[in-house]
């Protein structure tokens, strides 16, 4: 503001000086006609208006008019006009002077505006190119303050960003910047900009940095010479740059996670292979041995133990896989009946000494799950039923539904699980003292529960009317 005033004040004496100098020079030329003098004076008015714009332009027009009358219209050196025709000349001159001054000043202002807009546009282009070149938040913010200071033609710039809800901190600034914290908070909270004349000259402006419909923070520019519109443009650009940087960050993270999950998955597959192969080899070797020299107690024991070892290995591998997060469910629409059929096909051998009843309604109850994972979860339930209920007793598998849920249950006729232990049995390696004699890893139920929950379901243990255990999978029904 101060600078602008200075410039304008200089314009008035300068305009006067130019007009007087023109008159002086014209007086030195002998035999000059009044019309020639008028043209030169109009030229002077034009220059004044061009150089110092409308105020000094008007002043120049009036002074030139008066000077024209005083020096060049007879009688000379008075403001009196004798010839009535010269009165017309004087007024025409005055009007011409004012009009030319006005036109010239307007043209000049327009030109300056266009110039300023072109400069703003170039500055915004530079700024956006600069922002696009930065791919990390650090490099973006590191240079942002200085880039913005140049683009906005301001003295100081400070960038405040929200770290949490309402928690703003200054993340980048040009050296020595002093801002009013309350205005920063206000601009952030209300989402409106605040501008007022600056003691540094120009304007101090506090602008919210928009990101979509919300705000990322506040941009402060002190001693701003650019327009507010330009400042808003810069704030939008900064918001876009921050948003882009955030998305880049997310993309990088996702890529990293993906790579690390692929690595984990590959490692686990290799581990499973390395652990399973020796067990499988040993088991086949024992069987070969039995065929060659006949079965003995030792070879039978070795075979049983190897089978149990193989069970432990696969349970442990499953736990590791679940923990590592590589076992993502691949959900599809399947019928509960199909899950039961698959589980019985794979794990049904365990029930060879039990009376098996399958109660699946003919109308299919569809669920959206990973079929393999649910088969395995149910398989553990079938194995548990076989293991913890006496040979020859009934095991019943049923499928049913209510309004929005599907139920897959396995009922056995064992001793059941006391109510106090019904949650504890889902913990890893937990085996109830009463079942210590029965081989098991203490992992099956924990694996089952993880698998069921991963698929949006629930796994519960209850007691049947006959007192045996009920293994119950509850799944959201698929429409």
């Amino acid at each position, binding site marked *: 503001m101060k600078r602008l005033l200075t410039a304008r004040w200089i314009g008035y004496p300068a305009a006067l000086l130019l007009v007087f100098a023109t008159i002086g020079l014209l007086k030195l030329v002998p035999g000059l006609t009044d019309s020639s003098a008028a043209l030169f004076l109009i030229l002077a008015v034009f220059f004044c208006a061009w150089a110092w714009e409308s105020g000094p332009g008007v002043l120049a027009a009036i002074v030139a008019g008066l000077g024209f009358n005083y020096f060049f219209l007879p009688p000379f050196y008075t403001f009196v006009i004798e010839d009535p025709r010269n009165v017309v000349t004087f007024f025409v001159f005055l009007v011409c002077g004012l009009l030319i001054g006005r036109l010239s000043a307007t043209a000049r202002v327009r030109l300056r505006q266009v110039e300023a807009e072109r400069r703003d546009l170039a500055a915004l282009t530079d700024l956006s190119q600069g922002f696009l070149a930065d791919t990390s938040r650090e490099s973006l913010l590191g240079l942002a303050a200085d880039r913005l200071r140049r683009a906005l033609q301001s003295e100081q710039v400070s960038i405040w960003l929200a770290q949490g809800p309402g928690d703003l901190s200054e993340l980048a600034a040009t050296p020595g910047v002093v801002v009013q914290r309350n205005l920063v908070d206000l601009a952030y909270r209300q989402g409106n900009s605040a501008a007022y004349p600056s003691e540094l000259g120009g304007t101090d402006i506090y602008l919210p940095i928009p990101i979509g419909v919300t705000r990322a923070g506040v941009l402060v520019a002190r001693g701003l010479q650019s327009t507010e519109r330009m400042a808003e443009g810069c704030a939008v650009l900064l918001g876009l740059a921050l948003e882009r940087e955030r998305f880049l960050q997310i993309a990088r993270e996702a890529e990293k996670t993906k790579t690390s999950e692929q690595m984990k998955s590959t490692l686990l*597959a290799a581990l*499973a*292979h390395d652990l*399973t*192969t*020796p*067990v*499988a*080899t040993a*088991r*086949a*070797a024992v*069987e*070969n041995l039995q*065929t*060659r020299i006949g079965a003995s107690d030792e070879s039978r024991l070795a075979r049983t133990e*190897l089978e149990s070892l*193989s069970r432990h290995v696969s349970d442990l591998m499953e736990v590791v896989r679940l923990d590592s997060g590589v076992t993502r469910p*691949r959900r599809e629409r399947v*019928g509960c*009946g*199909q899950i039961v*059929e*698959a*589980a*019985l*096909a*794979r794990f*049904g051998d365990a029930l*060879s000494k039990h009376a*098996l*009843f*399958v109660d699946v309604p003919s109308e*299919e109850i569809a669920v959206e799950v990973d*079929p*393999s994972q649910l*088969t*395995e979860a149910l398989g553990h339930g079938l194995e548990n039923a076989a293991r913890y209920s006496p040979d020859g007793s009934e095991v019943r598998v049923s499928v049913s539904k209510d309004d929005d849920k599907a139920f897959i249950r396995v009922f056995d006729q064992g001793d059941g699980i006391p109510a106090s232990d019904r949650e504890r049995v889902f913990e890893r390696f937990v085996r109830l003292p009463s079942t210590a004699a029965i081989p098991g890893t203490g992992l099956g139920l924990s694996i089952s529960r993880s698998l069921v929950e991963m698929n949006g379901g629930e796994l519960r243990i209850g007691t049947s009317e006959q007192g045996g255990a009920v293994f119950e999978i509850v799944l959201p029904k698929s429409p």
Partner: protein
Amino acid sequence: MSRILLVEDEPGMRKVVRDALERAGHRVDTAVDGRDALERLGEQSFDLVVTDLNMPELGGRELVQEVRKSSRVPILVLTVRHDEREKVALLDAGADDYVTKPFGVDELLARARALLRRTDAGRGVPPFSRWGDVSVDLESRRVLKADREVHLTPIEFALLKTFLGKPGAVWTHSQLLAAVWGTTAGVTNDTLRVHVGSLRRKLEDDPNRPRWIRTEPWVGYRFTPEQ
């Protein structure tokens, strides 16, 4: 005597499988990976290929794809995990059957036997079959269970006929749909399941524990009349 090519990178596993197959009276050549196997297959012909899935160089699945470009030799794959998608992919790539590690030697031999028998028998379906207490006469379309005539619907009969064409083999859902309905459009696995279920109720002693028409979880079905 059948010639079998065994492809396995683990020396221990290679030895036990080889011993088991030789004990069953087969002549066994071995290869340590898929590339090695392809060379052997180029030099001489085999009646059966038994291959591991995870191998350095060329893996089992790639080997199946390569072999199928030029040969119809039966392929039995040894897999590690119960990954049904991998199994279906293997079968669709042209493998004939799989055994999941750790497997029983008897199971492995039974699968190998079934595949070898199929090559012996050629492509034809015998007009008369008998297993357990079931007998089937394809020409007169008569099916007897425990000496009593069983009535099968046309689709059930077509299913049974398809199963009889490859005894012991595993059929993926889509293979069965294509064989019985001729198309997979408009027919779902559920439809297939219903018909297999009713066929089981008519032929099996305990449909909950089928002995002959077995479910291969999430892969398809296997017809095992000899067991």
